[in-house]
């Protein structure tokens, strides 16, 4: 075993988890409460301590002002979230989750962990990827590599079918993002042929649809709900969504004033309301098939990944589109983390993997801003995107294109680098700019070769060569406007260290208290009084600090809570 293992992390919108490559293959790492999934939720408790995971998720209902979730959707933006008096950037919130996973891994592996392979949606752009790397740095982790989520899933599946010759489709619908990849396997090579996706389509959108349905059933407009009402109704919508994955009808209860209200949602109604979301899956699927130049009968398998693919509506939509039943042999919630661990094994040259190589593609086109002379009178039009590395090029890749100066006598060329598919640059993502001086030439337009070199972790190197004098100028795009610089990261790191983190060994107790508190919010009458009693009894036991006693009481109360929660209303 290498001295310090590299761990694989699936940093999800709804849940996160870690895995490592053990002697006999990838293996999941349990968190402090013994579960594999750590909800991607952050809260600050009354003692100004930071909570991560299930405890924080439960507090979303009871303390919406000091807890937050789903911040992965803000990665790569300047959007800040306030928890009480403090505000946090999405990188910082993600860093808390990563830090908690790192602590779990260290406890599980009994050695320090400092490197990780972190999965990101294939369709994450450069800004979102850089934000993920910054989050890891804030959590004290060096990113060995970012891996695309569907690629990770393909690795986890590919491991079991090493010598297969097949082409398969990975459909990954997570909490917040939708990714599609087409993967070909031959002689131990796992080659991604095409990737496509939608970074704003996921299971959470289906929950939002249910929230709207429930709100209309109680005669409310979702926008008119208070933060507390909204959190309760959303937790209820989430519950209904899970029920609808197993049956044709979901019944949930909502407390309105001092009254309990029964709400019913049928599967048909849910399916009708989500038709629009389901049809948004079509375009990325079609595009990936197009780019890989395949028809559906050329796919040997379809693999479903991500918790949201548990919804029957997703499964039937995929089955209808491809006339083939999808597979889900591996738990859709675990497969990305397992694949990230396989990549971690590959990165540390694990001998069990020496007959496997994986190659991925750049899901976006990379190019520069150009102007064109167009029309009979030679008007200049600016802002055209000229691709240099086309989407779905196998990476690492290096491509060169030649460009001309606009006019004779021009002194410099400004290279503005963009990422995206739109023909006009302003619809694409701006990555960086480089000024290249060119010799003044009054007789001809100077020519410049621009070479892009894009590597597996998404670093782009730009090299410009002036043809007439051979002068070169290059730069590496690291920082982006809106992303954190290295100085900012180290400064924030200091600030974050000042925040008290709830002790890891206490996570289970904190989660238990949050669970009772959440139950209290949703209960009425006698049950509510009983929960209040349980809470004060448990806090009294906690104060005595006898671990054995705490564990015993937790066990006993847990059984009672299980019973009480059956009557849970929101």
């Amino acid at each position, binding site marked *: 075993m290498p001295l310090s293992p590299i761990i694989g992390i699936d940093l999800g919108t709804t849940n996160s988890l870690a895995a490592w490559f053990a002697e006999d293959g990838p293996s999941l790492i349990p968190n402090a409460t013994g579960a594999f999934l750590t909800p991607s939720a952050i809260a600050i408790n009354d003692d100004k301590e930071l909570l991560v995971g299930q405890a924080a998720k439960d507090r979303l209902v009871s303390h919406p002002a000091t807890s937050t979730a789903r911040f992965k959707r803000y990665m790569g933006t300047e959007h800040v979230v306030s928890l009480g008096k403090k505000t946090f950037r999405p990188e910082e919130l993600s860093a808390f989750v990563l830090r908690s996973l790192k602590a779990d891994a260290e406890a599980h592996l009994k050695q320090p962990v400092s490197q990780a392979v972190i999965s990101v949606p294939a369709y994450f752009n450069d800004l979102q990827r850089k934000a993920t790397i910054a989050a890891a740095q804030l959590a004290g982790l060096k990113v060995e590599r970012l891996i695309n989520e569907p690629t990770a899933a393909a690795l986890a599946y590919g491991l079991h079918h090493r010598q297969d010759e097949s082409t398969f489709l990975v459909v990954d619908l997570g909490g917040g993002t939708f990714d599609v990849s087409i993967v070909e396997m031959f002689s131990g090579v796992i080659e991604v042929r095409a990737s496509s996706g939608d970074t704003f389509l996921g299971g959470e959108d289906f929950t939002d649809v249910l929230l709207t349905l429930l709100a209309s059933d109680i005669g409310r407009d979702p926008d008119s709900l208070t933060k507390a009402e909204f959190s309760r109704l959303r937790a209820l919508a989430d519950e209904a969504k899970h029920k609808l994955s197993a049956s044709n009808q979901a019944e949930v209860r909502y407390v309105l004033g001092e009254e309990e209200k029964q709400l019913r949602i049928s599967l048909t109604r849910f399916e009708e309301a989500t038709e629009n979301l389901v049809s948004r899956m079509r375009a990325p699927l079609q595009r990936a098939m197009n780019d890989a130049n395949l028809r559906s009968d050329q796919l040997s398998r379809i693999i479903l990944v991500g918790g949201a693919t548990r919804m029957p509506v997703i499964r039937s939509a995929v089955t209808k589109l491809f006339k083939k039943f999808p597979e889900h042999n591996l738990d859709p919630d675990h497969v990305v983390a397992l694949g990230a661990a396989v990549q971690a094994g590959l990165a540390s040259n694990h001998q069990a993997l*020496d007959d496997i190589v994986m190659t991925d593609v750049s899901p976006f086109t990379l190019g520069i801003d150009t102007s064109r002379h167009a029309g009979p009178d030679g008007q200049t039009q600016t802002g055209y995107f000229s691709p240099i590395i086309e989407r779905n090029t*196998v990476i690492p890749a290096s491509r060169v294109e030649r460009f001309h100066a606009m006019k004779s006598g021009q002194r410099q060329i400004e290279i503005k680098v963009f990422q995206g598919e739109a023909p006009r640059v302003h619809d694409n993502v701006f990555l960086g700019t480089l000024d290249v001086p060119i010799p003044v030439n009054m007789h001809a337009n100077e020519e410049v070769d621009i070479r892009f070199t894009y590597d597996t972790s998404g670093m782009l190197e730009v090299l410009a060569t002036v043809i007439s004098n051979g002068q070169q100028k290059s730069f590496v795009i690291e920082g982006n406007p809106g992303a954190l610089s290295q100085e900012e990261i180290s400064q924030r790191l200091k600030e974050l260290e000042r925040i008290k983190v709830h002790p890891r060994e206490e996570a289970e107790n904190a989660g238990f208290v949050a669970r009772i508190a959440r139950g209290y919010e949703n209960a009425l009458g006698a049950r509510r009084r009983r929960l209040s009693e349980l809470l004060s009894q448990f806090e009294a036991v906690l104060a005595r600090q006898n671990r054995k006693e705490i564990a015993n009481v937790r066990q006993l109360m847990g059984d009672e809570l299980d019973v009480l929660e059956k009557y849970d209303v929101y």
Partner: protein
Amino acid sequence: MSTDAFEVLGIGRDGATENDLKKAYAAKLKQTRPAQDREGFIELRDAYEKARQYIRNAKPPGNLVTSVKGSYKTDVDLEDEISNIIEIELNFLSSQILTSPAIRVLKKIEILVADPWQWQRMENWLQVLDDADLRTIDDLQEFDALLLSYICQESGVEERSNPLVKPWMSHQLIELFDRRFGWVRNSGSDFLQTRELDWFRSLNPVHMPPAFAASIVPSAQSNDVEPPASKTSDRPWFLGSPVILSVVFVVFKILMYHTPPSTSDVSGTWSIGHSAVVDGQGCQWVPKLPGQESRRIKIPCP
């Protein structure tokens, strides 16, 4: 860099099949892992793609369905590629022509556009696009390609240098197509598709400024770089003028109220909404009307 792709891969050029090539590539790849030897990998991958293209080009056309439309254009003779694609599409069409759901739905569209009272209603379009016949990804893909070609043909992609926008190709409809098929943001996966997508974009003034639309297929010399010029200076003075705006607005109103929609003749004197882009004679104005997105009105040259 080594000159011969087959040499890099360590196999003979003669009689090599794509399968041999894959095996040779897989073996070399295990010694040249992308994360550990970047330069080596780039060279190997380059050689692999070149050799693969060589083998594919050497094959008789017709068996190429899975291979030609790939994205490895750099080393292919463009003409070869186009003729291959045309051949494939012809083969494909002849086998599908009687049974394909996509063709049946396209027929419905042809019927729809023939009736001005029907094509004006957006719900009719939605109904056709949501046709239950189009169920599988293959049907959808085929329909996508057929519809795009149909629109290009109808607007004169073969005969004209500028698109002739039929009245039924309303602004709203073009937007609907884009929402459904993502044509505006798609750069295309082969030469023909790219050309059709460029043409489609030029149907909608929002996606293409008039001067560029006047030379739809960019010339080889068009990849010029310069610091962005100020945009306003390129526009004729009258575009921003309120007087002209109101004149245009009045003309627009008159045309709206006095002329019934017609399918037969659009190239005549006028068309509204999203008219064809005119050549460089300057008969094209793009005023912003109150409450509407930018629209174009074509007025005969004096």
